[in-house]
C-alpha cells in the first residue's frame, strides 16, 4: 500500500498554490518531487504532513487518511532550517524525540549512532549555534528521523551542502530506504534525483506535468540520446547535422549529445561515421537526462530562477 495524493488543491487568497495535484509514492522507495521555486512542492508536502489542510482532495497512507494518522508516521526536514540555537545538540534532539514519545535512552542511542555516521561525534554537547550550517543541517536530519518514522519527507535536503556532506546524506537516504522507509524529497537539482530516485513527479505552477517511474518518464520522451565523440574537430558536429533523423542537443567539451527519435536505430550514426572514416572515441546509448525531461515539460530549467539571480548578482543589479 502506498502514499496516495489524490487531487489536492489549495488557494492562498487569490493565489492558486495547488490545482488538483495527484501522485502515488510506492513504499520503500525514494521519490523525487521536482519543480521550480514556487511550483507548489512545499505546499504539497505540508498538506501531506497535515500541517496545512487542502481546499479539496485527500491524502492517504496505506489506506488511512493522513488526518487520522499519528504524527510519528512522518519525519520532516523543512526547507527553512531551524533549531534552538542556544541548546546543546543532544538536548535539542532529545527534546524532539520526547515530542514523538521516544524515551531518553533510545533517543541518546540513536543520536550517538547518527552523529558517528555523520562524522561529528564530538558535537554532542556543543551548542547548536557553534555548528556550521552544513553540520546544523545534519542535526536537523537526525531530528527528522529520530523517532524512526515510516515516511520521511524532506524539502530541498541537499541545498547548501558541500560535496562531502551531500555524499554522507545520500548514504543516509539509502540506509533509510534499506531499513524499509519511504522517502520523498523535493529538489530543483537534477543530479541527486538521477542518482537516488526510482520515481518522480514534476510540478509546475500547482499542476502535475509528469509523474511515474524515472525509466517510464524518460521513455515517454519518445527519443534516445547518443553521447558521441570523434577524434575530429567539434566531434563531427558539422557533418552530423546532415543526418536527417538526428538532431544535435547539448555540445559538451568532450562530446556531443544527439537526439534520436524512438523509431530510429541509433546505429545509423555509427555507420555514417565509419563510412566517412571518422575515428569514433565515444558512442554511448542513453536516455534523456531528467534535466532534459524537465525542460521539455516545464519549458525552462528547474534552477532558472537561481541562474537569473546569479547573473543579476554578477551584473551588480
Amino acid at each position, binding site marked *: 500500500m502506498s502514499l496516495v495524493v489524490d487531487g489536492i488543491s489549495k488557494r492562498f487568497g487569490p493565489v492558486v498554490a495547488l490545482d488538483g495535484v495527484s501522485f502515488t509514492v510506492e513504499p520503500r522507495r525514494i521519490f523525487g518531487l521536482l519543480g521550480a521555486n514556487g511550483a507548489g512542492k512545499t505546499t504539497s508536502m505540508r498538506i501531506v504532513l497535515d500541517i496545512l489542510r487542502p481546499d479539496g482532495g485527500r491524502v492517504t497512507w496505506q489506506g488511512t487518511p493522513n488526518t487520522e494518522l499519528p504524527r510519528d508516521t512522518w519525519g520532516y526536514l523543512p526547507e527553512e532550517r531551524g533549531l534552538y540555537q542556544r541548546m546543546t545538540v543532544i538536548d535539542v534532539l532529545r527534546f524532539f524525540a520526547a*515530542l514523538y514519545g521516544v524515551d531518553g535512552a533510545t533517543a541518546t542511542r540513536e543520536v550517538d549512532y547518527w552523529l558517528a555516521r555523520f562524522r561529528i561525534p564530538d558535537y554532542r554537547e556543543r551548542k547548536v549555534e557553534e555548528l556550521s550550517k552544513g553540520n546544523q543541517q545534519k542535526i536537523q536530519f537526525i*531530528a527528522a528521523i529520530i523517532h524512526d518514522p515510516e515516511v520521511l519527507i524532506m524539502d530541498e535536503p541537499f541545498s547548501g551542502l558541500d560535496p562531502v556532506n551531500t555524499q554522507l546524506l545520500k548514504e543516509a537516504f539509502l540506509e533509510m530506504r534499506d531499513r524499509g522507509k519511504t522517502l520523498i524529497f523535493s529538489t530543483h537539482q537534477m543530479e541527486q534525483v538521477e542518482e537516488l530516485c526510482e520515481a518522480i513527479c514534476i510540478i509546475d505552477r500547482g499542476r502535475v506535468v509528469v509523474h511515474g517511474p524515472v525509466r517510464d518518464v524518460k521513455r515517454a520522451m519518445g527519443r534516445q540520446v547518443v553521447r558521441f565523440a570523434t577524434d575530429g574537430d567539434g566531434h563531427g558536429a558539422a557533418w552530423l547535422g546532415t543526418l536527417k533523423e538526428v538532431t544535435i542537443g547539448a555540445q559538451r567539451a568532450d562530446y556531443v549529445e544527439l537526439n534520436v527519435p524512438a523509431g530510429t536505430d541509433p546505429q545509423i550514426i555509427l555507420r555514417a561515421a565509419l563510412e566517412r572514416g571518422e575515428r569514433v572515441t565515444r558512442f554511448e546509448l542513453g536516455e534523456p537526462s531528467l534535466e532534459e525531461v524537465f525542460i521539455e515539460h516545464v519549458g525552462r530549467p528547474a534552477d532558472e530562477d537561481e541562474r537569473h539571480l546569479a547573473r543579476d548578482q554578477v551584473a551588480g543589479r
Partner: protein
Amino acid sequence: MRNLFPNAWHVARREYLQRTGTRTFVIVTIILALVGFGLAMLPVVIRLIEGDDVTRVAVDAREAELDQDPVTALRLVLDAGEGSAIEVVAADDPEEARRQVRRDELDGLLTLRRENGDLAFEYFGDAGLTDRSLIAVRTAATQLAIADRLQRAGVDPQQAGEIFAPTAFQVEPVDPDATDPDELYGQNYVIAMAMVILTFTAIVTYGTWVATSVAEEKSSRVMELLITAATPRQLLAGKVLGNGFGGLTQFGAVLVAALLGFLAQGTVAERVLGDDALSLTGIDLWILIPFGLLFIPGFLLYCTLYAGLGSMASRQEDVNQVTGPMLFIGMAGYFAAFIGINTPDASWVQVLSWIPFFSPYLLPARTVLTGNVALWEWVLAGVLMLILLAVAIWVAARIYSAGVLLYGQRGSLRQVWRAVRVDR
C-alpha cells in the same frame, strides 16, 4: 484535553528551563527581589533617616519681656507633645545664630517680640509649612502665646497649667481588633494599589515573554519542526505554561521578598527605631489566597491570548504591534482599577470586578478596601474566568495554527478573524 499531555509538558519543561536557566534571569530576579524587599522596608528607612535628624532651633527672646524662660517653656511643650526630637537652645548672639542657620549648623532661629503687647514669632529657616518639626514649633509657640495672654489677663499660673493639661480623647474603632481605622484604610489602600500594579506588571511583562517566545520560534524556523511533531494546542499550552510559570517564578520570588520585608517591618522598626508604631498589624494575609486563585487563571488567560497573537508576528520586532490589543485590554483593567479603587462601593466597580479581564485587578482590591465582598462574588468571578479561559484557549489555538505558518504579513485584526473562522 485529550492528547494535550505529555507533549504540552515537554514543551513547557523546555520553555521553563530555557527561560529560568539563564544567568540573566537569575540576576534580574535577585535584583528585583532586593528591590521588592527594599520597597517593603521603605517606611522604616524613611523613619530611620528622619528619626536620626534632630532639629535644633535657637530661641531669641530678649525683646519679648517674658516672665518665664522661653527656652524652658518651649522645651516643656515640645517634649510633652510630639515624640520627634527637637532641641531648643537659647540664642545668645542672634547674629551668630543667623549665620549658623545659613551654614546649616542650626535648623532655625525663632525670634520672639512684642507687637501691641501680644507675643509675635518669627522663624528663620528652610523648613516648609508642612514640615513636621515646624508644625510642632508652631504649636508650641501658640501655646506660649496663649499662656502669655492668660497671664496678662490675670490668670494665676497654677490655673493656667490646668488649662493646658491634656484632654481625655480616646478613639474607639468599629472593629475592636483593628488598629486606628484611618491608618488601616490607608494601609489597605496601599496594599490594594500594590496588588493592582503588580497584576498589571506581571500580565504585560510575562505576557510579552510568551508572545516573544512564539515569534522567536517562527523567526528561527523551529516552528515547522515543532508543528510536525506536536499539535498546535499542545504547543500553545506548553508555551503558556512554561513561560507563564517561568514568569511566576520570578514574580513569586519578588513577592516573597516583599512579603518578608513587610513582615519584618515591625521587628526591624522596633530594633532600629525603638518603637513599634510601624508594624502593619492590620494586614490580613489570607487575602493572598483568593487573590492567587483568581490571579493564576487570569494570568493564564492573558498569556494564552498573548501566545495566539504572538503567532501572527513573523519577527520579534513585530511582537509589540501584534500584541497591541492585549496591552489595551490590560491597560483598561488597570485604569478601571485605579479609578474604582477610590469608590470601591460603587455598583459599576462591583459589576466590573466579576468580569474576567478586570476581576484579577478589581475583586482583590475591593475585598481589601471594603471587606464586604461576598463569597459568591469570588465564585462567580472564578467561574466566568475559567469559561473565558476555555474559550480563549480555543480561539488562540485557531489563531496559532494559522499564524505559525504565516510569514511575511503582519497580523491585522482581519487576518486574526479569518484565522479563527477558516480551518487552517
